[in-house]
Each structure stands twice: as structure tokens, then as C-alpha cells.
């Protein structure tokens, strides 16, 4: 490319660079907004899932509560409460019985 051509297209290149810079600024600003909405959505989802987790944990605690387990053991599995003399420990570090 000759010097003359370069000199001729220089103003167009400058204008192009300025326009490109302006477009870039607009693009970046839009991207910030878009990411902002996305974060907001994710934040809401996070909160919703945290709440759901909390509810499930509560539900789990409810269905595994001692009174219910005890009742199920006695009614569904026909188990009875341990009687006197039924203290058995077959594990542990200080076991006195042969295993």
C-alpha cells in the first residue's frame, strides 16, 4: 500500500476506531445489565433452593423424630422395648466380650 493511499484512508480508519470504541462501550454496558439480570435470577434461584433445602431438612427431621421411629418400630416391626438385662454392647473400644 502506497503512502498516498494510507494518507487517504487514515480519516476513515480514525472514524471507524471511534465508532468501534463507542459500540464497545455500549456493548459492555449492555453486557453488565444482562449479567445483572442473570445474577438476580440466580440469586432468586439460590434463595428458592435454600428455602427448599430448609423445608426438606425439616421434613426429614420430622419423619426421623425419635417418637415416630419408636412408634414405627413397635407397630410396624413388632419390636418391643428392651427389658432389664438386655444391655448389650457388641462394639466399642473397651469391649469386655469376645467378638
Amino acid at each position, binding site marked *: 500500500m502506497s503512502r498516498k493511499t494510507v494518507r487517504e484512508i487514515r480519516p476513515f480508519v480514525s472514524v471507524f476506531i471511534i465508532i468501534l470504541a463507542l459500540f464497545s462501550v455500549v456493548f459492555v454496558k449492555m453486557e453488565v445489565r444482562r449479567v*445483572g439480570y442473570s445474577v438476580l435470577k440466580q*440469586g432468586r434461584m439460590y434463595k428458592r433452593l435454600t428455602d427448599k433445602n*430448609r423445608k426438606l*431438612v425439616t421434613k426429614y*427431621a420430622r419423619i426421623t423424630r425419635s417418637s415416630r421411629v*419408636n412408634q414405627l418400630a413397635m407397630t410396624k416391626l413388632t419390636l418391643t422395648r428392651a427389658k*432389664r438385662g438386655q*444391655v*448389650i454392647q457388641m462394639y466399642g473400644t473397651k469391649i469386655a466380650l469376645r467378638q
Partner: protein
Amino acid sequence: MKSRIVLVFSLFLIAWLVLIGRSLYLQVLPNEKLGQLEDRQFSQKISIESHRGSVFDRNGKELAVTVSTYSLFADPKIMESPRKAAKQLAHELRLSYAKLYKLVKPSDKRFVWIQRHLSFEQKEKIQAWGYRGLAFVEESKRIYPNEGLLKTSLGVVGRNGKGLEGIELLYDKYLKGSKKEVRVQRDARGRPLVVDARHFIDQPDGKDIYLTIDGEIQYFLESELRRVVDEYSAAGAMGVVLDAQTSEILSIANVEGGIGEDATRVQASNRNKTVTDFFEPGSTIKPFIAAGAIREGLALPNTEYDCGGGKLKIGRRVIREADASHGFDKLTLAEIIAHSSNVGITKVSFQLGQKRVRSTLRDFGFGESSGVDLPGEVEGILHSLPWKAHQLSNISFGHAMTSTALQIANAYAAIANGGLLRRPFIVKSVTEENWVNPVLRNYKPRRVLTEEQSKMMKLILSGVTSRGGTGYSARVNGYPVAGKTGTAQKVKTDGRGYKKGAYLSSFAGFIPVNEPRYVIYVMVDEPQGEYYGATVAAPLFSSIAQFAMRKSDLAPVLISKENVVKKLSEVSPKKRFGEGVNHSAKGHLPNVLGMSLREAMHILMPFEKKIKIAGKGRVVRSWPDPGDSVEKVKQIRLKLEVE
């Protein structure tokens, strides 16, 4: 021409410069008024509500949890299609249409509650209908998943989310969290624009609290107290289980008799009586008088005392044994405790003197607050000196003084752990860095007995549960138990003196004696029929101690035939599998006859069939029969019978 061009250019230039200057002035230079305007127009304040922290037991099981709920309200002034909305709401919320229409029909009101604490799904559904004039407020709801478990200690939370009683009140500042407000930019539709994700992740939620409570022991204690109250038609019962070495509260409960019959009682049952109510402890105090004599070097477990045939005259009063048939002449200090001799312990207290009796009881924590992290604790009464002779005698067997259930349990823990009086506590940790329970921060355990003296006391208290001792029924097979029974007359609530025929039956002790793990105190208020500590409270202690030991990893110390159940591998193969059936043949039912339910289930589970069980004990019959194919059967039925 050129000058004109220059002039026009200059005018434009000046105009542009003025515009640029003005915009710089507006945009760059600080301006309070404009700043406020901008804030109002382009920014929004988002409030992030905090969740109240959860409360867990020592094993991480939830005792109190807060969940988000959504409360629906209406603005009748701007409500659109009220009839249609009321109809849809009535169907969704299962409320009456007439009632709902009355709430949402056009009026000058700007706010009416429709329904509070709705689920997220319900909120989404109602929002999707898109009625103008219906909106939601996010609220929190406190849930206690174990229903009434530990309710007297946990307390309650008010509608505004503030702790009102118990741990909820005392630890409110940790649990409640804080409200967080975030300022964000908003768009033309009012939606937040640039949001920092950390705002949602770093929630200002309350801290979680981990208690020293063991949920399973707590449940067992509460159900056993309830059982005893029902069995003896008692006015109430209370119990405390402490970690013998650290005084951590593993379980603490009180139950009332006749709940539902009278409102005052129900209200009273919400009080944590183990710390808020004091009473005359009765004979459970005697070991501390004996401990005083031992630590002052006045007596040893085998030192003999003359018990005067079961009577002792003090001025005009005569001290007698609780059981008129107990006319002891001479008893050692250990026997005085084992037989719970009033005369004997009076002799010991006279030998010790009122000053030393009082200081001993003070050292063991009586007459002063234990400092536990539960609200409403009372100190109990230990009168100042001088005492009259009969007063000293009464105090030596637990009358003319009062204490709380927790004080008694903690004093026994001092004997059990080798002589250190520690401060009982219920909150183990808070999810905060370097958190130390405030009640333990500057507390130094107090030495009340030497190791040697503590061993002597353990020996003496073991005698109570030996054959012939008053606490024989407190035994737990496999583990040595130390403790003391108590049967105290109940003080009248109106007027002076004691209520006729009303007793407080109690037992305090620890298990196992050689390596104390649990300190347990139980008291039954006004049991009907039987009322001695030996017959009412000692078996209750035994039952709770047995459960606690089953949960612990300590193997039985005292091994007898009764407390050893043969392992599956030790049951004879003939009994275990029967004869002639190949129990491992693929697709065929193994012989589970003679097995316990647990053993049978273990073997049958891999078949992935529904198992129906009838009866209890060991398996006596199975359908299909052992050895038959199980491929086509839908369920396996087992019949169990007790051997």
C-alpha cells in the same frame, strides 16, 4: 468569506463548550439535590430478611428450624375482578368464598390479610393469576420438628420472630440475625439492574446453635417421666441427665400430670422447673453431709455411729427413721447412707457442726445459682447461720433447705468426676469463630473433694444399690450404679408445714461407678399409692440409665448370663437354619426359622420382596416355606413368636 466561516465555527464551538461544561457540571461535580433525585429515579433499596438460626442437638439433629413462608394480602381499593379472585382463592386456600369476597370487595381499605404463611408453590400459583391488588410479604415461621421435645428448655419465639422464653430468649442475639439492606440500580421497569451476587450469598442469617442435649436420651427421659406420672397419677416429674465428667446437660425435662385438664397446669408445664422451681430434696442430700465429714477428716466409710435404736431426741422434737421398722443401733457411715438413716446422718451433722455443714453444702453448689445458661434459674434456700439443733438435723436429711433438680445433679457430678464442681451448661457451640460459652468464659471448676475422698464417696454410694440398700431397684444389669434415694415430704403451698400424704420421690446417682459417664437425677412429685424413692424413682433411674448405657460405647462391666445375648454366629446352626435346607440356593427362600427379626430381615432384604411380619420374638413360620422358589411370589410373610 473566511472570516464569516471562522465566526460561525467559533459560535458553534462556544455553544458546544457551554453544553459540555454544563454536562460536566451536572455529571461530574457533586450535587446533593441531583444526587437524591438520581437515587430516587435509578436506584432501589432491597431488604434481605434474615433467617433465624437453627438449634441442633449434640448429634446435629434439628430441634428448631426457621422456614420462609409467604403471607398474602389484598389492597381492596385497587383490587381487580374481586369476585373471580375470591372464587379462585377460596378454591386454592380452602376458605369460604363469602368470607374472602368480604375481604377483597372494593372499599377504601388499602391493606387486608388474606392468609398468612403460605408455601412457595402456593405463592407462585396465586401470582401467576396476575390479579392487581393481591401481593405477598415474605415471613418466617419457627418449626420444632420434634414436636414437644425439650420444649421447656427451648422456649418459644413470638410472632415478630423474637425469642420469648428459654434458649430462644437467652441466645436471641445470636439466633435472630440482622436485616440487610442493599442499594442497587434499577431499570425503567423498576427491576434491579446490577446485582452483586454476594448480597444473596452472604445472608445476614442468625447463627446456628448446637446444644449439649442428646435428642434420643431426651426423648427417652421425657417418655419415661410421662409413663411414671401416668402410672402413679403423680402431679408431675422432672429429670436431668448430665455428662458426669463435664456437667454438660444431656437431657433435661419436666412433665406435668393431668395436662389438658386445667389451664394453669398446662401453662406451668411450659416452665423449665428443673431450674426455676426449688423444693426440699430429702435424703439425696445425705451423701454431702457424709462427704463433709470425710473431707474434714472426721470420718471414714467404716466409722461407726450410734443410731440409738432409730430415735433421737433433740429438745422437744424426736428424730425418727423414715421406716419405723428400722431401729438401727450402730451403723457405719457407709451403712447410714445405704439404709438412709435420719438419726445416723443427724449424728454425723452434729459431729461436723453447723458451720461446716453449711460450708460443705455451699461448696457443692447449694444455695447459690449454678450459673447454667438457661433463664430463670433460682438459687434455692440455704439459711444463714446460726441454725437451731433441730434445723441442723433437718438440713442433714434434706429438709429446711431447698434446691433445684439441676443443683442436685451437678453436686452428684462433682462426686462422680473426682471432686470438681463444674458449671452445667446447655449450649455447646455457636457457628461463630472462637465462640466460647459465656457462662464458662471466666469460670474455674471448684475442687470440693480430693480424688481419694471422691473414691470413698463412690464406694459409699455404691452401697446404696447393693443388696439391702435403699436403692437396690436402681441397679442396671452389667454396670455398677452409685446413687441415693430420697423421699421428702412436700411443703404446703398455702400456709406452714407439710402437705399430708404428699411426697417427692427422688433418686440421684451416676453410672458406671468405675468410670462415670452419666449423672442422672429424677424426681416424681406426689406419686399416689407408692411414694418411696426406692420404689418409684429408683426404677425410673434404672430405666433411664439402662437406655443411656445402651447408647454409649461402654461394654458391660459386670457380665452375667442375663446380659449377654448370643451373637448370631454363636446360635447353633441347627436352630439357625434348620436341617436339610440349602439356605443359600439362588432364587429359593432361605430358612430363617429360629432367627430374630433383625437376623431374618438381614437375610431376606436382598430378595427385594415386600416382607410382612406378624407377632414378635423369633421366626416360627415363613411363607413360602424354606427352600421354595421366591421368584413368583409378591411378598414374603413371617410369623414370629416369643420363645
